């Protein structure tokens, strides 16, 4: 039974609770719900976390921005081609400090999703993000990015306008920006489309978010030529926050309330706020040079391989 089915059962229990008026029964059902909720979140499989990360009620970037950023002014367009609604960006205040915020925006309903292209950005979206980041560097503002995308959009227009180049340029420029960049993966972090706004000094993940090279479906279809094996793919891909923390690819996990972020959004926002505040404080005393070096060194180190020196072999092997 996956997490969505368990959640349905939970909703049924909650409905039962609303219809009751007997005090004693209410007490017992309430404790039953708490127990069930707690039990539900034990031993989550990787696939459960994928489902939670894609949950239709999960807070989107816009929700997080509304909760955390005061006086948010959205800025549009890449000054070249168009404004991509899959990426939203702007300036605002985070705990009385001016920051630039860039985020990938999913919708909660189908119409919203179509408007935001299911958070799959086109090249102009990445170029807008880069423009805003350069602007932030000019005015010495920290950058906060929220990652929530299945991946960059694969389409004729996107290819013709250089999707690959746009992502590459972002990675290139972000590696040497002289202001701190903090990224939080709040839902799905899919492939280069996520990394293109995720080359950050600190990368955090919400507990039940995922970050991977490709969607589990795509992974299964490439490796086993069968997209229906997504569940199996999710297990082998090591895409959960706990796996990635173990690998040292991310810098920390932001705990979610019991039941997932959508069960108590306020608590989620609070947790994100605390992590962001801590991270920004850490980089407050860094010089510009130290900030960019720290980021570069961090990514320079990532890799899983062995190497030895042939010169040392001369005595060992004839």
């Amino acid at each position, binding site marked *: 039974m996956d997490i969505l089915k368990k959640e349905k059962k939970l909703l049924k229990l909650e409905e039962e609770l609303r219809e009751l008026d007997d005090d004693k029964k209410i007490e017992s059902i309430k404790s039953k719900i708490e127990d069930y909720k707690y039990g539900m979140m034990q031993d989550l499989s990787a696939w459960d976390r994928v489902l939670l990360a894609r949950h239709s009620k999960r807070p989107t970037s816009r929700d997080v921005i509304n909760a955390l950023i005061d006086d948010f002014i959205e800025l549009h367009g890449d000054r070249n081609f168009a404004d991509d609604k899959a990426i939203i960006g702007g300036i605002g205040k985070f705990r009385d400090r001016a920051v630039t915020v860039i985020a990938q925006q999913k919708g909660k309903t189908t119409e919203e999703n179509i408007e935001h292209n299911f958070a799959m950005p086109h090249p102009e979206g990445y170029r807008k993000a880069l423009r805003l980041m350069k602007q932030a560097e000019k005015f010495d503002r920290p950058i906060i990015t929220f990652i929530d995308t299945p991946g960059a959009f694969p389409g004729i227009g996107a290819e013709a306008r250089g999707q690959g180049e746009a992502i590459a340029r972002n990675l290139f420029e972000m590696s040497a920006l002289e202001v701190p960049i903090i990224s939080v993966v709040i839902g799905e972090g899919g*492939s*280069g489309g996520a990394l293109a706004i995720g080359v950050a000094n600190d990368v955090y993940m919400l507990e039940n978010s995922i970050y991977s090279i490709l969607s589990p479906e795509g992974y299964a279809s490439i490796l086993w030529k069968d997209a229906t094996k997504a569940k199996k793919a999710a297990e082998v891909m*090591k895409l959960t926050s706990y796996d990635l923390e173990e690998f040292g690819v991310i810098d920390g996990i932001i705990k979610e309330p019991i039941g997932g972020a959508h069960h108590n959004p306020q608590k989620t926002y609070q947790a994100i706020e605390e992590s962001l505040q801590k991270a920004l404080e850490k980089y407050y005393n860094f010089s510009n040079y130290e900030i960019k070096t720290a980021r570069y060194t961090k990514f320079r180190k990532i890799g899983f391989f062995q190497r030895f020196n042939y010169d040392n072999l001369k005595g060992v092997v004839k």
Partner: protein
Amino acid sequence: MKRDVLENAFNRQKAFKRKSTNYRKKPLSTEKVPDVPKGLYEKCNSCGERFIAKDMIENKFVCPSCDNHFRLRAIDRLNITVDPHSFLEKGLGFITLDPLFIDGYEQKIAQYKSQTSLDEAYIYGYAQIEGIPLVVGVMDSHFMMGSMGSVVGEKVTKSIEYALVKRLPLVMFVASGGARMQEGIFSLMQMAKTSGALKKLHDQGLLFVSVLTHPTTGGVTASFASLGDIVIAEPKALIGFAGPRVIKQTIKQDLPEGFQRAEFLQEKGMVDKVVHRHKLKDTLHTILQLHQDRGV
């Protein structure tokens, strides 16, 4: 156990040197994409014309009748591009590991290693073109579609750093299917690593020429391949971020003729120049010469 690993790798290295002379005789791919034909007589897999294999080498692996550019092994690429005996390989001794414990990945790597006599899908080193020194990196699409895992990412970064330290121009021949799925998130992070290293090269005012050959897709297009100061493409090479099959599935339309081919990208302004393989060495030489004047 460690000693075994070292010995194995050392033997592989010896085998590589031994095999590199008759390296081309072992065809690997049975796909439809252009490949180096085997045997004495072979036919072009694009136009079906038959020809003598020896002529092919003289013709720089281009079909004499239909101009089809075959996929090259790394060593053939070096042979037709850099001065004879000038190539000095660097960055040896990397061992690919299996971070996600994927079934069959280690066997696959071992198989490709013996088939291609390469340690990984990328080799780099010092070389000269018409006497001009440079750092040259070549990806071999016969090694697991030239996909970028931790080792390829590290070697690409090392080659950039080598160019940086020696203050030499860097020319990279790209042929890759993208990031290596079997290494998961590590492959993804190589994109950031290689791009970051290129930024350092850029800040030092050094030249980076990226030559895109068939095929260049996925995570490699979205990182170092697109970041050349000058981006050259070979005719009819497939270059793009998402593969044509994925795009077709997503938009549920037929793709236009010539979509994602080198000529299409030049028309859209995404590559500087499409250069025929016969003229590639001269073009590179001219570019290197033009950048030599300012003391690079």
